[in-house]
């Protein structure tokens, strides 16, 4: 592995950046002219630097709280559904009919353009063996891709950056829109940056006394090296400054090309689209939307959230289409578990197990996928038995979309799904 001390400034000479076809910020031009220098990244190496060689991007949307899959992708033809939910079954007026067996919650209607164009896939029954019904623990399982009886520290995205990407670590290769990087990003190379808004990220000066220029001057990497820890800190500072410059430049230069709904989630996706259009070069973006823990009063809450979700995703892809970048972006939306088959006495549902997972993008093989879980033959707790292990989805995304070896990320081999168009 190359020394981590090679800074981002040094390897930005990577000419593949230009291949994304996006105009480069002026301040980077002089660095690229120095590209003749050896950068440590070999063109054509089997593990390309993230985001550069194939230009493909993954966006992960985390629907936090446990979305009720059965009222999202509704098994309308199944008597067991109506028997279990005399009060909570989605009425005909709130459904979008797909076929005799299936309807979607009507709040998903902003997503229907993508679905009808074959750019949305829904994998039903996604879960894992020996499911855990605690938010904290189940989310940890999805983040670390571990078996449910094992505890891992590293996240699957962190493992991807550590084990499947070579060259100097680029902190902006992974972006989380929020305040703290989630466990999915935990790895050994410190890849990943979290910010709520682009302005949030970076050194904040009060004024001219503690100016960004002075800040950089006191942390120059060519100062007499005190010790390895100090060298390391200065290298990371330098990387962070370069990243902050790029993020701020994109935020001030790039305007979204589509209209987004006025919701916080849509705003976050608009930031992602801005970064993509601006050529940040991040490989993976991660955006949370929480509130799905509908123990009570589910109909109103879930409708609002599904609407926020679908409205955001629709605007996001419209925006990317205007930049001609949509075919580069695959979006995966998951929830840490589905909910119980039976409704509870509070017009809601309690924590369950398997649920539907969404994939979006022009490259996606659109339509219904996976196998619908059986509503009658349930597990010992009366919950759905999963039919697709979520690690299979990760494996498919890692290998078929990102060209990585899933064996270097996941604890064992999982059968893949056909998620992409032929």
């Amino acid at each position, binding site marked *: 592995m190359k020394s981590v001390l090679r800074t981002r400034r040094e390897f930005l000479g990577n000419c593949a950046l230009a291949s994304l076809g996006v105009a480069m910020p002026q301040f980077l031009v002089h660095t690229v002219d120095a590209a003749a220098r050896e950068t440590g990244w070999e063109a054509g190496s089997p593990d390309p630097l993230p985001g550069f060689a194939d230009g493909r991007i993954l966006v992960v949307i985390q629907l936090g709280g446990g979305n009720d899959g059965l009222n999202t992708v509704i098994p309308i033809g199944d008597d067991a559904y109506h028997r279990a939910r005399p009060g909570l079954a989605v009425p005909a007026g709130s459904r979008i009919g797909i076929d005799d067996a299936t309807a979607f919650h009507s709040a998903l209607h902003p997503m229907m353009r993508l679905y009808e164009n074959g750019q949305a896939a829904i994998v039903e029954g996604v879960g894992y063996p020996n499911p855990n019904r*605690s938010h*904290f*623990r189940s989310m*940890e399982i999805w983040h*670390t891709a571990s078996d449910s009886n094992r*505890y891992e*520290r590293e996240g699957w995205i962190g493992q991807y950056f550590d084990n499947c990407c070579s060259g100097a670590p680029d*902190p902006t290769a992974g972006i989380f829109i929020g*305040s*703290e*990087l989630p*466990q999915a990003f*935990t790895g050994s190379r*410190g*890849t*990943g*940056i*979290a*910010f*709520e808004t*682009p*302005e*949030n*990220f*970076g*050194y*904040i000066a*009060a004024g*001219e*006394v*503690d100016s960004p220029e*002075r*800040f950089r*001057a*006191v*942390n*120059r990497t060519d*100062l*007499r090296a*005190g*010790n390895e*820890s*100090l060298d390391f*800190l*200065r290298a*990371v*500072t330098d*990387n*962070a400054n370069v*990243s*902050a410059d790029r993020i701020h430049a994109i*935020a*001030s230069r790039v*305007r979204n090309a589509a209209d987004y709904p*006025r919701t*916080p989630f849509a705003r976050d996706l*608009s930031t992602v689209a801005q970064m993509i259009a601006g050529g940040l070069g991040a490989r993976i973006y991660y955006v949370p939307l929480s509130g799905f823990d509908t123990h*009570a009063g589910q109909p109103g809450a879930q409708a609002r959230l599904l609407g926020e979700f679908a409205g955001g995703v629709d605007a996001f892809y419209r925006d990317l289409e205007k930049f001609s970048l949509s075919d580069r972006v695959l979006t995966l939306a998951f929830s840490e578990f589905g909910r119980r088959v039976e409704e509870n*006495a*509070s017009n809601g549902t309690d924590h369950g197990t398997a649920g539907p997972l969404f994939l979006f993008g022009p490259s996606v093989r659109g339509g219904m996928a996976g196998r619908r879980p059986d509503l009658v033959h349930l597990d010992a707790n009366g919950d759905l038995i999963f039919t697709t292990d979520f690690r299979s989805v990760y494996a498919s995304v890692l290998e078929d979309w990102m060209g990585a070896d899933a064996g270097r990320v996941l604890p064992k081999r999982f059968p893949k799904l056909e998620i992409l168009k032929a």
Partner: protein
Amino acid sequence: MYSPLEPINPAVWDEGKARHLLNRAGFGVPHELVERLARLEPAAAVSLLVDYAPEADLPPEPEWLEIAPEMRAGRDELRRDLRRMRDGGGMDPAEQERIQQEFRKRRVELRRAQRENIERLKSWWFRRMMETPHPLQEKMTLFWHGHFATSAEKVRSPGANYDLNALFRAAGTGNFKLLTYEVCCSPAMMLNLDNARSRKEHPNENWARELMELYTLGQGKYSEEDIQAAARAFTGWSTDGETFAYRSGVHDHGEKSFMGHRGNLNGNDIFDIIFARPDTAEFIASKLWEFFAHEDPEPVLRRQLGMTLYRAGYELRPLLRKIFLSRAFYSERAMGTRIKSPVELLISMVDSLELSLKDDALVEAYLLFAMSRMGQNLFHAPSVKGWPGGRTWISAGTLMSRYNASSFLTQGIISEGGPELRRRVIRRFRDDPAFRRSLRQRRMQMRRGEGGSGMASTSMEDESTGADSGEGLSGFELPLKPLDVRQYFARYDGNSTFEVVEALAERFYVLPVNESQLREFVQALEQDAPGREVFHSGSWPEKSLRGTLHLMMSAAEFQLC
């Protein structure tokens, strides 16, 4: 070549080494203590830190700790009703629904109260770390907190979290075998690793695995069969929520084979077998070395450390004394190379600025928020592996958070925008007309897209609905600053600006800085006060004073101790 654990030569003992010892064995460096330790012989200085009486000065349990028992009783009563409902039936559906809703409401209330108390506990402990008479006691509490890591996300009871913390404090420099045993039996650990529900029909392997992998032997020193046997041996070791409870009926009394020993083994036997192995001593002694001295000790050093602990029957003080007195502890590899953990960093800021946090709830709230942002949310270990420390603290984002955190203390600037912090700031200053004016101006700036992305900020909606989320507070300057900066700088009156900056560097850093860095600091200090030969705090531009402090704490050197 010297033996690394050979004691340091008293002739080379000086203030720099005393300071290093205090930084590592404690949290911050009060200057009087450095001078005092420097005047002693090294062995006496180390003894001052290590040989405090463990039972003395233990803080009392906070009165606010326990959630009102009526809250819990109310919820439990409803839970019983629900169970009766489910088993017996025959209850009116409307009544059922009422009970379900009531139960849910009580549970939400209880959970909220528990979360609030855990937050208070974080505050309580942070203060203890800053104010303790025995720095090593708190440093070891922090070490065990990361070694035997649990999370309040899973262990919700503030009492259970407190009890474990108190155990680390009281027994943290005692006997490691005994400590591990007590931790095993603590409700917090029982719940965190699910041993509370482990029974012979279905032994839970969680505790058994982590006991060996994380707490005693380390990976690769046991087999999967050993884990299974140990899991069986620990069945029935449980808790009633408050204390240890042994459930003989679910304990597996059968024959087991564990690490070459065969018999009707129970948990006590597992402990004895594990601790009879010198590997256990080497594992924990090396981890302590990495925590206090430097990373990656060589195999020879690991063995020596292990032997020291093993021969002392797992008593920790002889090992600690040896570590703190050793030449290797004061080597170039150890001195000035440790990246401060978030809590150490923040305490060092408070100490360097001589801030007294007696009444400042806001400052405390900010510090705890910043600590979490930097990756150290106390009582909420991100995984069972705790916080590995060292370079894992540092990523582009967390490092920026570190540089920005000092901006709050020196300049009153809120650099990050977490919703909870924003809410507290708004709550605290909502009646201040100057604050409201500044906030309005700031929001108008953001709406106009100045310095922003041009997207309409949701603060517009918030203003119209009256709900205040504090959006747009990033970079916002508070009218009241935590630091009285003129008072702080007064001691440097009469010196040249260069001397002032040199003195601050001496105070802030354990490593020498470059000429070019010093020049930057001097230029910062002289900003808006050009040509002034002699420093005078009373008439110096305040922004230059504050900005210089922020700049100096934003040099990478400040991250090291």
